[in-house]
Structure formats: C-alpha cells, structure tokens
C-alpha cells in the first residue's frame, strides 16, 4: 500500500511538479557467459535489451544498469571511461555479472508524460455516451492505479499508487491544500510555471503530508489570492477569503 508518484499538471496542460515517493526498483543481477543470449542496442545513450530473455528475469525493454557492480553512465560508458559495447564484445571479460532493470525516467520524459495526460482527460469527456461526463478520474491497470483530481481552476493532481491503496481522495485534497498554501501564496511564484523543488515548501511538505501548516505572511498575499480566486465562481470567492482569514487570525 504505497504511493508511487505525484504529478501536478497546470491549466494549460504542462507539467509543473513531480515527486517520486516510492518507486519500486525492478532490478535483476545475473552472471553471464560469452556470448550473451540477449541482444542489446544503444538508444538514447543507454543500452537496452531489444531481444531475448525470459518474462520473469531479464526481458526486452530493460536497461543495462551496472557491470560487476560498477554503474554505467551516459554514453554508454563506465565510470572509468571504458566503452561498454567494446567491453561486452570482448570475450576475455566474461563471465561477468550484469544488472538489468527499468531505468528511471528523466525529467524531460516525465514532463512529456504529464503533458500527455491532459488531452486524454479531455477526450474522455468528449467520447462519453452519457452527457456531462467529467474527464478521467481513475485509471486501473494490472499493477498500479492512477487517480486524478481536477480542481475548479483546471489544475490536475495526478497520483500513482499501487492497486490496493485506499483513501486517495484525502491525499489528493491534502496535496491541493498544500499547493494552494505554499505555491499560490508565494509572492514570487508565477502561475503555471514549474514549481521549483529547491524551495522548501512542496518537496518537504508533500511527503509529510499531515504536518501542520505554517502560513507565509506577506504583503502580496491578498493580491495573489485574488488572482487565484478570479478563476473560481464569485459565490465561492468570499468563502475562500473567509477561510484564509480564519487561518491567518
């Protein structure tokens, strides 16, 4: 029962925040003899298995992570500079222990995925056989569940958890609260820009999501708040301001 990762997608569709809480590591390390029964190819400066292997052990799509315990850097080369492809074609280096696994996504890939979710959400409400359908709220796959909360201002909070997780609504609402407290009330934050994870707020508060709130009081708070509430219906504006005043007082 765990949360894998959190993504926040802005109103215009770009990803503005990503946090990986508990990403399960899929790695297998085995000793291989020459010649390798797997076919490896260089893609995006990484060595990827394109053919071979069994379903439970090393399979197609996995990346070569380390050789004999030494991690592989971009290139693909080892830390001491030796070219990995040459290393693997040289029979003298075998038997060697190779570790394969699913490589972490780069920030660019995560931004790409986060932005890809936005049109899928919109099309889901278009192809609906019932009128007035919302977009995608939950996606269930075999080994994970994706939950999405779309706020009234169009910001989407996406949570990827394992299938047995309960209480997602509470977590999503809490993340929304933290977002509105730490991001929107930050006077230096520009709307729909990526949230900087070096600022103390989001990256520290999201994991400890039940820590008490410390309000950042600033001269510009009211102007930021009005800018945010302009997007919400007028009847809720007063409720929102009243709530903030309650917290401040």
């Amino acid at each position, binding site marked *: 029962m765990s949360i894998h990762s959190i993504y926040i997608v802005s109103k215009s569709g770009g990803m503005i925040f990503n946090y990986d809480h508990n990403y399960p590591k899929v790695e297998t390390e085995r000793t291989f003899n020459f010649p390798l029964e797997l076919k490896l190819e260089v893609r995006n400066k990484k060595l990827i298995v394109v053919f071979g292997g069994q379903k439970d052990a090393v399979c197609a799509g996995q990346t070569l992570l380390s050789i004999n315990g030494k991690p592989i850097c971009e290139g693909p080369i080892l830390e001491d500079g030796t070219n990995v492809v040459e290393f693997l074609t040289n029979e003298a280096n075998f038997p060697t222990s190779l570790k394969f696994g699913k490589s972490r996504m780069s920030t660019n890939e995560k931004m790409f995925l986060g932005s890809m979710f936005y049109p899928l959400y919109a*099309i889901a409400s278009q192809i609906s056989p019932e009128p007035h359908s919302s977009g995608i709220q939950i996606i269930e796959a075999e080994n994970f569940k994706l939950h999405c909360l779309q706020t009234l201002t169009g910001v989407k909070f996406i949570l990827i958890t394992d299938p047995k997780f309960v209480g997602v609504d509470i977590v999503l609402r809490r993340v929304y609260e933290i977002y509105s407290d730490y991001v929107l009330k930050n006077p230096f934050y520009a709307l729909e820009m990526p949230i900087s994870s070096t600022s103390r707020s989001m990256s520290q508060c999201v994991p400890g999501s039940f820590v008490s709130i410390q309000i950042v009081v600033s001269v510009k708070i009211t102007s930021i708040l009005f800018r945010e509430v302009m997007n919400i219906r007028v009847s809720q504006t007063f409720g929102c301001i009243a709530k903030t005043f309650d917290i401040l007082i």
Partner: protein
Amino acid sequence: MTIYNLYMFDKTGSLVYYGEWVRKKPATMSKEEEGKLVYGMIFSLRSFLLKISPTDIQDNSFCYRTSKYKLNYYESPTGLKLVMNTDLNSSPKDLLKSIYAQIYVEYVAKNPLSLPGEYINSELFAQKLNQLVSMSPIYSQRNL
C-alpha cells in the same frame, strides 16, 4: 448495470465493428471520425500507461472511470482491440474475453470471406454478439 457501446479495432487501427445499446448523448461526429478519435485515444493511453508504470505490464487490459461511465479495454494477442463503455459498477473483463473467443474467432476469423481491416457486415456476427451481451449479468433490463 448497463452497457453503452462497443468498438472493435484491428491492429492497424481501422474500426472493424461498432455496436451500440444505450446512447444518451448524441454523437457529434460521424462513426468513422469517432472511431479514429477513440482509437487514437486508447493507443496514446496505452503507451502512456506502459511508460508510467513502475513495473512492467504483463496484462493487456486496463480500464478507466470518469464520473459517468467506465471504459474497458482488452487487447487480444493478435492485436484486435476491444473497447467497451459501461456504467461505473461493471467489470466486463470476462465478457470482453468471451466476445473475442466465442464470437469474433468463431464468426469472423474463421470466416473465409472476411478480409482483415474490413468492417464486419456479417449479420450472424451481430446477432450472436447481441445474444452474448444480453445474456451477460452486466446487461440490465433497462437496455431493452
């Protein structure tokens, strides 16, 4: 417990069959355009899920829920894609598998006159499909 509609796509993406039982919102575009939209959407959604998944996906089906309906997707090993929209409480994974195994394989794949990629015009197929769907526990009296 209702079944709204069913789309079937072959591995190249052309709409092979569309079956409709309940449709409250009228279609805003032609059947072909809607088929292309749905196919594009499930194709992108599938590659999105493969990338974002923390471990490798072995199963070839998934589903998503909105506030009003649930879309269930099943892909056969030969690349035939079945997309079924149902209400929020149904779980028609077995129904989709039996549609493929008992109806498609029997009445389309084994039909010597059917060409791959062509729309299924066979009345026998439509009749058997309606029979199977109406016998399933997910299908409610309201659909009749």
